[in-house]
């Protein structure tokens, strides 16, 4: 399938929270984006239940640096809390991704038109996405632009290899997994000259079963649904 797209995403801050620091609330970012975060970004740009976005690789353009900010989060039980969040500052990533059909959505089979989705995705990248884009967490607004993967200079060109310890990769949601189960996936990323080659979700061997979960796709079959257009007349 010729459906590879490249884009760049940048922002002032990013927070790809390390799960160890997430549950306590003193959030601290991973050094590099997670697969799930990048998948979320391209899904914000364009997505339909017909497709699954697969992230092929990402390129870190700026030097990795962090900045802390004091936060005043809201408690569930009311009132405020005080925390210190550690963000990545001044980030820019080039991402290459492609889409595949979601075979667990039989109801979308008629929508599997590769050209259509490919060109919509390209147009949406040109326009900066359909919905707003954020880097890791909601407060880190990001911006998407067209870009050819590998163009321009990165701080990590000719830097050599950097390896990271066990890191969160992404979630297996039931709608893409086809089972009523929900998993977290992990992997050990390597960054070579700034480029991270992501492994495909099913290649992640380290998995944690989180809990049972059921997908609830809408039951509608679109305009073919009986009685939907009853009494409707198109104006001349």
């Amino acid at each position: 399938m010729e459906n590879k797209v490249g884009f760049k995403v940048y922002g002032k801050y990013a927070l790809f929270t390390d799960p160890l620091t997430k549950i306590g609330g003193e959030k601290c970012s991973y050094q590099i984006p997670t697969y799930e975060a990048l998948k979320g970004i391209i899904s914000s740009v364009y997505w339909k239940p017909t497709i699954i976005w697969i992230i092929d690789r990402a390129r870190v353009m700026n030097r990795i640096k962090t900045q802390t900010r004091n936060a005043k989060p809201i408690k569930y039980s009311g009132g405020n809390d005080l925390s210190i969040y550690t963000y990545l500052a001044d980030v820019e990533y080039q991402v290459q991704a492609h889409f595949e059909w979601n075979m667990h959505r039989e109801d979308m089979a008629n929508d599997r038109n590769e050209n259509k989705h490919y060109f919509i995705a390209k147009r949406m990248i040109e326009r900066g996405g359909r919905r707003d884009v954020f880097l890791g967490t909601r407060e880190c607004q990001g911006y998407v632009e067209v870009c050819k993967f590998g163009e321009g200079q990165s701080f990590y060109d000719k830097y050599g290899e950097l390896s990271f310890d066990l890191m969160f990769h992404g979630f297996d949601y039931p709608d893409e997994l086809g089972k009523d189960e929900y998993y977290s996936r992990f992997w050990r990323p390597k960054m070579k000259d700034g480029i991270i080659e992501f492994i495909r979700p099913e290649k992640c061997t380290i998995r944690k079963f989180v809990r049972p979960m059921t997908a609830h796709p809408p039951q509608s079959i679109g305009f073919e649904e009986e009685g939907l257009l009853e009494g409707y007349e198109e104006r001349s």
Partner: protein
Amino acid sequence: MAWIQKLYETYEACSSMVGYSGEEGKRPLLPICHITAQANIEVTLGRNGDFLRASVIPDPHEATTIIPCTEESASRAGKKPECHPLCDNLQYVAGDFTKYGGVVTSGFAKDPEEPYRDYVKILSDWCSSKFGHQKAKAILNYVKKKRLIHDLVNHKILFLGSNKKFLHKKERKKDKNRSDIFDVVSDQGDAFVRWRVEIPGELETNLSKDNTLWHSWTQYYLSTKEKKPLCYVTGNDALLSTQHPKYIRAKGDGAKLISSNDTSGFTFRGRFLTDAQACGVSLEVTQKAHNALIWLVGRQGKVFWVKGDGGRKQPALTVVAWATSNQKILQPTESAFDIFPEFAELPSDEAVTAYTAQDIALKLRNKILGYKVEIGETKDVQVMAMDSASKGRLAITYYRELKGSDYLERIEKWHRECAWIHNYGYNEEKHKQFSFVGAPAPVDIAEAAYGERVDDKLKKTTVERLLPCIIDGQPIPRDIVESTVRRASNRVALENWQFNKTLSIACALYRKFIDDKQKENYSMALDPKRKTRDYLYGRLLAIADSLENWALNKANEDRQTTSARLMNRFAERPFSTWRTIELALSPYKARLGGKSKKRQRMIDEVKDLFEPNDFTNDKRLNGEFLLGYSCQREFLRNNSETLKEKEEVNEENSRNN
């Protein structure tokens, strides 16, 4: 992020240090499932659990004891504190506690036997398991006899009143020659007991140093727990921890790096229902990593304290750098003097003159390179900073992993680019002040920028902002430089020593600032050819100051010179202020007569160096003027003798000219 992985590796690499701190009075590297406690009474038993003797432990260093614990007992608090398995307070270990009027913690009030029962239960479970240890069995045998208080009273460790109940502290007549239990606790019931067991043929009687006992407890404790899925650090299924250690920055500091009890915030709600679904760390990893961190912070870390609620000092920002392989590492929070204590060996007069500053800087450099040889190229160095916004949780505010050689290169670069001659070094042992060359410590920078009485929080924030400058080579924040320059220019507001300290720090910072911005490196010695306006104005001020000072000294007058008083105004409007200063010099010139000729000529020489428009320009001076001022002052100070000698000869010469 790998901080926990790296700490875990550090623990493994330093496992030979387990049980020791490496330095007197510092916190030891603890075995897992163990904590330290302050013991008050030491009881020695025989192999079958017969009471031999007991003593009070008056020395706090001596009292620090490594004891086994459970996860719950390690972080115990509240009305019903969990008991430790081996050593604990009297209410747990003494079966006859209540008989002598001992008062249990309020939660146990309804059933005062409960703590003792819990203790005996956990101890006998351990002893009857296949991991049981004969020393633990001896203790169990003894405590089952329920006669600990009885024996302690007989041996005059504890005291009873006439009613056969614990004696109150006030009722005790103090024997000055002998230290007793009231020296270490105010209520005898609170005393903490540790054990010694003497078994013929076994050398180690001290339970807190017996690693077979540590091992026995750890094995047993781990065997009581079930394996749960996936540790987020190793990626393996393991026994997960439900409680993570505290006391990371200092004793009594409750903030935790990993806290997982939060179901009342918005931290993981949504995708996950419980914290265990969101994250898990194995007990072994978290304990080893935390124990390593606690040990490293105590040994080589720097803790900044701030004033908290009720004015009590509490630990805040903590910075520690370490190598995975137990080597001493230069800390980013150190000044050049801390790295190079040999500065103190150099006699202060000749220590650092303007001419040798470069040599000393070179020596410092070699010293740092020496560390590099020791650490090697490939070893990793980690730098970690932690801070907390609230009491219970600790945040990682900075974390970097670098190759050892990169790390030392950055430290060396910082000390090279941010170097100046500082005179405020103080050797406590020799009670002597001395000079050193290099970068000032981040704390000193914060004080120079915001005053000696800088708010603790501002101080720690400044240190935190300087960390990336040192370790990542980021440019130094402009506001810190400007604030320091402004304070250094305002000489009348500062004591003399304060002014000198602020001045040298301002020079160091400005030098680094220009280096970052324009890649220009100022010399630490006077550069007589330099023609920039700010530099020359600085030199002028120093010469005028020196001339007047000399004259005042001669007349035994002790007051500030005109240049000192007008320094602030001079920095704002140099041209117009210079007129005032120069006019004010006339009486002193007259007083000194021919002797001031040399300095007067220097003033003219400097003036000649100005571009004509530069001199008349009344624009505000930037930090470079402090460099000119400092260099010229140092030059005059170091050459005062030669200048004087020449004075007479020159007088002749100038007449001839």
